[in-house]
Structures are given as structure tokens and as C-alpha cells.
């Protein structure tokens, strides 16, 4: 298969994670202290490199059929959860994930936390905030790169997509010196949900022994069908929401 769809899919998926990590790092750096924030980021990146080094080769050693079955199932579950959230947000059943309000929450918490020096780090709060933010979002990036790269036998293309996303988001963050609030994050998540569900369903079924009509070309049909079904879900819930009286309560934002 051409590497471009793989690079684009990984790029968009990793960009979403990078935006969330950037919001946390900006909150820590601007309100607390940049030196401790960068130390937290650096330690998180070292942990991520160690995890990638340990897990990556182990996954590569698995037989391709078993790998596709397990990774396909995980990606399909992952993708359907993203789609579910994106559809609920698009139809008002769940509040939109707002980077501006997420940033304000982090800033308020950071401003009220006491300054404490520990283990050679001058501001432990800034360090742990940046560490956790980069590690958690970074783990998702590692998961996406390893699963997509391994399944397509093109880790290099997946790494290019992820690295490009991180660089683009980091440069944009440095340029505006603030969290990226103008990015249509819900629609990016919707698109990523479609891709994860499509690839996951395709690989999972292949791992279960299915021979897809047209082989890899089936993905070119499957992804648009997933998109159409998801769009139909938005239409269905929009009508349901409009027909309901009084207006539906919104589900609490969890991520």
C-alpha cells in the first residue's frame, strides 16, 4: 500500500495528542517555571523512548496474523470510542473539548499550588505536570506509531507522520505562545475515529482469517462507508436532540 494514507492518518492522530500535551506544557511553563517544565518534558521523553524500545521489538516478533487480530481489535475499539465521543460532541450531547477552558483549569490549579523544590528540581509541581502531560499523551502517540507501523510493515512512515505532527504543533505553539484554541479538535477526532475504526476492522477481520475482496483496496471502500455511517449517526442524533423537549443535559467532559 502507498505510505501516504498511513503518514496522514498517523499525522492527524498524533496532532490531536500533541495539542493536548502542548496545552498542559504551556500551562505549566507560563504560570510556573520553564526550567522545571522542560525537565519534566525531558524525563517523560526518556521514559517514552524506553517504553518504545522495550515494547516495539516485542510486538514486531509476534506472528503477523496474531498481531493483526489483537491490534485490529484494539484499534477498532479505540476508533469506535473516538467516534462515539465525536458524534456526541457534534450533536451537543457532550460538551465540546475546549482547549481554552482546559488551559484555564490547569492555569488556575498551577497558580494556587505551593512551590516546592525536590530532587534537584526547583519547582516540583511544574515538573510533574509537564511529565504527566507529555507521558500520557506520548503513550498514545507511541501506541499509534507502533500499531500502524507494524501492521503496514512500515514503521518509518508512521514515525515520519508522528514526528511531523509533533514538530508542526510545537512550532505553532511556540509561534502563538499559547494553547492552540482555533484548531477544530472535534472534527480532527472524528476523522481519526473513522481511520482507526477502518484500519482496525480491516486488520482485525484479516487476523480472524478473512480475505477482503480486492485485498488492500477494500480499505478505500471501508473508510468512506465508516464515514457515511458516522455522519448518519450525527444526523440521527441531531434530529433526536431537536425532537426532545426540554433540551438534553450535557454529559460531563472527561477528557
Amino acid at each position, binding site marked *: 500500500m502507498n505510505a501516504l494514507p498511513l503518514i496522514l492518518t498517523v499525522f492527524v492522530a498524533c496532532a490531536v495528542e500533541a495539542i493536548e500535551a502542548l496545552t498542559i506544557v504551556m500551562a505549566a511553563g507560563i504560570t510556573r517555571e520553564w526550567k522545571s517544565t522542560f525537565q519534566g518534558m525531558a524525563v517523560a521523553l526518556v521514559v517514552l523512548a524506553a517504553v518504545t524500545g522495550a515494547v516495539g521489538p516485542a510486538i514486531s516478533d509476534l506472528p503477523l496474523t496474531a498481531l493483526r487480530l489483537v491490534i485490529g481489535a484494539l484499534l477498532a475499539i479505540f476508533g*469506535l*470510542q473516538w467516534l*462515539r*465521543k465525536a458524534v*456526541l460532541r457534534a450533536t451537543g450531547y457532550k460538551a465540546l473539548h475546549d482547549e481554552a477552558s482546559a488551559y484555564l483549569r490547569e492555569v488556575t490549579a498551577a497558580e494556587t499550588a505551593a512551590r516546592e523544590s525536590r530532587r534537584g528540581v526547583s519547582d516540583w509541581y511544574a515538573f510533574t505536570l509537564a511529565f504527566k502531560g507529555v507521558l500520557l499523551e506520548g503513550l498514545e502517540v507511541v501506541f499509534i506509531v507502533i500499531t500502524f507501523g507494524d501492521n503496514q510493515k512500515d514503521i518509518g512512515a508512521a514515525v515520519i507522520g508522528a514526528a511531523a505532527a509533533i514538530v508542526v504543533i510545537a512550532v505553532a505553539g511556540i509561534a502563538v505562545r499559547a494553547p492552540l484554541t482555533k484548531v477544530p479538535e472535534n472534527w480532527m477526532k472524528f476523522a481519526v475515529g473513522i481511520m482507526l475504526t477502518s484500519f482496525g476492522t480491516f486488520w482485525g477481520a484479516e487476523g*480472524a482469517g*478473512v480475505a477482503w475482496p480486492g485485498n488492500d483496496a477494500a480499505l478505500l471502500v471501508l473508510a468512506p462507508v465508516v464515514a457515511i455511517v458516522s455522519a448518519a*449517526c450525527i444526523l440521527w442524533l441531531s434530529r433526536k436532540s431537536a425532537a426532545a423537549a426540554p433540551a438534553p443535559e450535557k454529559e460531563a467532559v472527561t477528557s
Partner: protein
Amino acid sequence: MNRIKAFGAFWYDFVIGDDWHVAALVVAGLALTAILVHVAHVNAWWLLPLVAFAALAWSLHRVTSHK
């Protein structure tokens, strides 16, 4: 103990997410596909997409009908 719980909760949220029924349906769909292919010799490529669409629609229906 709390750290182990937090670690478990993180991975549950990371993989399973807000609705475990979706994960259960996907796993059941894969198992049924494997049975159809290897036991009944039916090339059931259509089954998993149908299960995925049904899981999404059912999960959305469940969460919105409670509102």
C-alpha cells in the same frame, strides 16, 4: 495499592473507554468471524464492519436515551 488501581484505571480508560459494551461487541464480532471462516468456511468479511456499526449506533442510542 492506590498506584496499581490508578495504573489499571488508566489502561481501562485508554483501551475500553466510556462504554465497555463496544469493546465486548467488537471482540464477539471477531470471535464469530473466526468461527465462520475456520469452521463454516464462510469468508465473512462483511461481519465485523456490521458489528462495528451496530455497536456504535447501540452505544449512542443507550447514552442519549438516558438523557
